[in-house]
């Protein structure tokens, strides 16, 4: 079982991480670098430094999506034990659900920010990030596997509730990048997140199925 989970998670994580990393470099990195010139008032870093930085970004992205992949494969295994069929189509749905829980839900109140955004208490935002993700995970899980209208109500409360009391915008906004850049960055970060999660889910579903049906 552990071998199946690890194989599934690492293959899917590598594919999704490389996808996310490359899409980041094509669609997001230039916006981020431009925002940094507004933040610091300095010129762009030299090419050699950027190459190193970009390579690190792709590697870290692979590590991150392997982490997501491990959680995803573990939950697939859990549902597989309960008799659910796990394949490419189910993987697609798992991936979209994962995107909604891990990327879209926290972004609803804590959107991806460019460097130079108004600084607020980091620890507080990190705690809220965890709360948003955990409550969305519970909400989506109940939405999918719940059966009664009461459970549907609990799911809705878990999905919406934390955002009613979540972090507020600071009174004074001092973000240095133009809003056009910030809007483009946030929107594209969600788009890249969705694509990467779809790759994660689909590859995980395919590998899991193969591991299950192939020779043990």
């Amino acid at each position, binding site marked *: *079982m552990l071998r199946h989970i690890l194989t599934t998670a690492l293959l899917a994580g590598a594919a999704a991480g490389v996808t996310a990393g490359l899409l980041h470099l094509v669609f*997001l990195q230039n916006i981020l670098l431009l925002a940094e010139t507004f933040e610091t008032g300095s010129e762009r870093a030299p090419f050699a430094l950027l190459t190193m930085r970009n390579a690190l970004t792709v590697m*870290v992205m692979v590590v*991150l999506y392997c*982490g997501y992949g491990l959680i995803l494969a573990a939950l697939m295994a859990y549902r597989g034990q309960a008799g659910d069929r796990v394949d490419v189509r189910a993987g697609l749905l798992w991936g979209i659900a994962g995107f909604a829980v891990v990327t879209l839900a926290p972004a609803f109140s804590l959107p991806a920010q460019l460097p130079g955004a108004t600084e607020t208490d980091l620890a507080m935002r990190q705690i809220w*990030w965890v709360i948003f993700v955990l409550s969305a995970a519970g909400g989506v899980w109940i939405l999918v596997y719940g059966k009664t209208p009461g459970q549907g109500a609990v799911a809705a409360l878990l999905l919406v509730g934390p955002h009613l009391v979540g972090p507020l915008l600071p009174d004074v906004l001092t973000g240095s990048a133009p809003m056009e850049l910030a809007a483009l960055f946030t929107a594209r970060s969600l788009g890249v997140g969705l694509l990467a999660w779809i790759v994660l889910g689909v590859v995980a579903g395919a590998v899991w199925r193969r591991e299950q049906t192939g020779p043990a």
Partner: protein
Amino acid sequence: MTTLVQSQVRDASGTRAIFMALAFGLALIASVGFASASAIHDAAHDVRHTTGFPCH
């Protein structure tokens, strides 16, 4: 009886594998998204911004 015992053994090892994978996955996510050590922060900086982790 034998079937019952076997299925309990399989479930126990499956459950252990699931929890190990969950713990390992959470550790990876926490180190990429939340670790404050400056080397990790610098390497993960762009990833944190673009994937929506609070960064600074």
